[in-house]
């Protein structure tokens, strides 16, 4: 389990990192927190000749709230640590679902060094940050020497461990629009113990009311760990979107059934496919119930 020798270079800043990637991107691997990469290197799943560290890029460790400047959105630097995001007061207020999810990643030690950008770019189907970011319609800003590009997270993943990221690109930041009306979200993951475990199946449920505060204007449902990539389930979302909160409650079990059917889990040492599917159903119901209750209470009646 020894790591094979490699060249290591710590970029002093973003531009230097992008220059380096422009030159050596195809041979190089980027390291942020390293909590996934180092394990993969130990297991010899990845044998990079060159490792470019983003460790010194403090410029990408931020949570910026550009309510005045930029379309009422929040920007999260890719090098933000899970532990910081889990406790960020602004995120806790607007996107508690994201704080919950990143707060469940690994252990304290992992959350203190692991970054949200790393969690996304590692592209594990079970990444805890992915389902909440999917249901929040997160956009990713990808940077290269040629310039920046903004894409939706949904179009980012292409398979287990695979993304559309080009060898000369790095993920710079994540942009999420602020909800305009009352919103609520809930994330649940199946695990074999109560802390420090990978997600065996994850469910994110996010909803926002319309101006009447009684109708569901937006519903987002995403699953982790039960398909080659984290996925949204539009057919389950459609069943609830546009309905009043009271109507939606009566459709929860149908919605859960649709979502469970949409999942394509596998059998492995961690759980069987059928148990994962069962749990998706249960967790969708619990998340939905929880979110609809919260919205009902915040609706003022």
């Amino acid at each position, binding site marked *: *389990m*020894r790591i094979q020798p490699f060249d290591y270079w710590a970029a002093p800043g973003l531009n230097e990192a992008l220059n380096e990637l422009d030159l050596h991107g195809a041979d190089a691997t980027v390291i942020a927190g390293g909590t996934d990469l180092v394990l993969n290197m130990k297991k010899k799943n990845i044998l990079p000749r060159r490792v470019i560290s983003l460790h010194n890029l403090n410029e990408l460790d931020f949570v910026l709230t550009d309510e005045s400047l930029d379309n009422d959105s929040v920007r999260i630097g890719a090098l933000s640590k899970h532990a910081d995001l889990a406790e960020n007061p602004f995120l806790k207020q607007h996107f508690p679902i994201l704080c919950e999810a990143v707060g469940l990643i690994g252990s304290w030690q992992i959350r203190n060094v692991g970054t949200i950008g790393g969690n996304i770019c590692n592209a594990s189907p079970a990444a805890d940050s992915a389902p909440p970011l999917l249901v929040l319609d997160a956009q990713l800003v990808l940077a290269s020497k040629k310039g920046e590009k903004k894409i939706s997270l949904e179009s980012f993943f292409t398979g287990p461990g695979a993304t559309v990221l080009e060898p000369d690109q790095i993920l710079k930041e994540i942009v999420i629009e602020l909800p305009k009306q009352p919103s609520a979200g809930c994330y649940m993951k*199946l695990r*074999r*113990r*109560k*802390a*420090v*475990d*990978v997600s065996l199946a994850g469910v994110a449920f996010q909803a926002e009311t319309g101006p009447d505060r009684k109708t569901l204007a937006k519903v987002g449902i995403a699953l982790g760990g039960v398909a080659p990539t984290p996925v949204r389930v539009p057919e389950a979302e459609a069943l609830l979107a546009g309905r009043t909160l009271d109507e939606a409650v009566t459709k929860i079990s149908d919605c859960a059934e649709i979502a469970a059917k949409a999942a394509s889990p596998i059998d492995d*040492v*961690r*759980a*069987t496919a059928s*148990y994962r599917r*069962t*749990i998706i159903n*249960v967790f969708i119901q619990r998340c939905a119930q929880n979110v609809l209750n919260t919205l009902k209470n915040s609706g003022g009646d």
Partner: protein
Amino acid sequence: MSKLDVVGKSFPQIDALEKAMGKTKFVTDLALPQMLHGRVLRSPYPHAKIKNIDTSKAARLAGVKAVVTYADTPGIKYGPRTDDWTIFADDKARFYGDEVAAVAAVDEDTAEGALDLIEVEYEELPFVADPLEAMQADAPLVHDDKPGNIAAEFKVEAGDVDQAFKDSHVIYEDRYYTNQVYQAYMEPMGALAEIDKSGRLTLWTGTQIPNMMRMTYATALGVSADNIRVIVPDYGGAFGAKMENNVHLVAAILARKSGRPVRLINTRHDDFIAGNPRVPMYIDIKLGATKDGILTGKEVQVVGGAGARVVYSQVIVATACYRVDSLYRFKHVRSKGFTVYTNTVPTACFRGFGNSQMTFVLESALDMIAEQLNIDPVDLRLKNGIGPNETSVHGWKINSSGLKECVVKAAEKAEWKTKRGQKKPFKGIGLSCCNHVSGNRPFAREFDGGAGIVRIGRDGRITVYHGESDMGQGQKTTFAQIAAERLGVPLEMIYVADVDTDISPFGLGSFATRGTLMGGNGVLAAAKDAFKQLAETAAGMLEASAEDVRCRKGSFFISGSPEKSLPFKEVAAQATYDRHGAPVVGTGFYTPPTVLPDLETKYGNISPAYPFACQIAEVEIDPDTGQVTVTNFVGAHDVGRAINPLATEGQVRGGVTQGLGWTLMENMAYADGKLINPDFVDYIVPSALDVPEIKPILVEPIEPNGPYGAKGIGEPALNPTMSAITNAIYNATGIRIKELPVSPEKLLEEINKKRGQPTDNK
């Protein structure tokens, strides 16, 4: 007994600060000049003929100093119990992880790189992983000379079991399965091996049995035992696993071939696939009782999986067969045990030693009987539990027994009656008892006691030498407390030496929950001897007779007149001067009043003292996911006397946590004969959040054979935990868990089945 100053008081472990500061040198931290690093090439197949091994490329790699295979060993068959071991696979590899070759190189990277260059030509053979399948007539043979894959059989019978069943009002019968689990100690197994100019081998290794290991390894290496020295530095846990294992001998062979010291520590992966995990068992039980809940007869059959060679599995199966018979007042019992070879990692000792497997089964069966008879499980245990000064069906002499006090106190603390009476859906409370030993007479047939040496030098420095083993459980602290109490000095004055077979007593080691009682009595005898010598010196200095000399808190005085005293150090100095420089050396040993069991009837008395326990678990079950949460836990333990209550409670908490892990999540999972979860990502052990507050209760009936009244605690801390939890699950759901671990998926299936039954009102 007069007031105790040191024994019975809570102290942190004497080496806790060093460990907390990261200063302790564990086996993995040891280094010698010119030392090489070893790595083992292990079989990628569960069963395969080895047709050829080409080590030439590996040997040519820069930095590689030795490559060894079976051909570099003396080729002697050996083993701690059965001569079915070889150092390295001979003509075939018998399990996934079997040692095939090894490399010593200047650093670990080179050694690992060299493994890839060793070319082995295998021919895969059909394999068998399950012990019941291995007993089938057409099963592949693990060892050609072991027909039916039977490694050992065990039988015991007492009374008239058939008549007892006829006289029973109720009979419960079922099959259970306990799985293979890994000890998950912090430091993987390994050794530092050095061979001196004369050819004498020194092994620095974490071992529970330094002396017995030395005997086994002498046979394996074809040398006399005095040509091997074993030193036991601090090491990171064992839980039964750290006895004989080929990894130590591979280090020795590498050191022999390279002529340089070699440190070989298993990677965690290697430790998972080739350690010494728990013996998996199929257990059939038949248990009868009268209308009033008096147990009548018991019959069991145990089939245990030895893996590819016998470590201690046959003794573990034997223990499973009959140790529980001395927990209750059984009169009619019959057991049969089969130890069966399979193509898996050899299995061995793990906290409980077969008794934990059978306790799970018996205590589950007892709750089923209690339900059939509509008797409270507490009352069933109280009616049948063995008491003090009783002799069990197999001749075991129970001196002290706090069993009933454990049951009563645990039930009180857990509010058993209230909680059992106010049943809420999917919440439950369950209990389980256990017995155990403090030493096991037949384990080494020559003797079973313990010995100690107490050396006191001119400066009053007191060094205790013992032959047992401190793997982190606190044996050193216990011995220090016993010596301090007997000598009459504060704890800080005692230093406890690492075990070194050149210096320390020939101790049997730390297993069978024997360390405190056997080693403790040995140290106590040595301290008594040392005190007697010092008392004579002090008598001269105080102008009194030696019988009247006392020492407390580091001062010698004459009984009745403590105002005139002499510091311990002054007396130690005078004693050394009187001896012209020789230190005061006290030696002593303890002869336990045990009786070696008859080979045929097994009638005897295997331990000088028997600890007991009762544990109570409360659970909550998520009916939609099948997940179980243990919400409360009480463990009442008869420990004779707690030498160190803090450490004793720590043992209870640790044992319960380990048992909780076994019950709810731990499992070595195989596919195609290969372990598929050899890491802590997929071999799940409990996190802090999975463990409720564990409330230990120490019951102290003061054991006449124990040092200051103490019995052991290590294994009974875990034995009852599994059935306490599964009995609570039964109380919560009406579902009887017959296979460990409790899989949420299977539990959910059962819950759904029950929900589908309209007649069921649980």
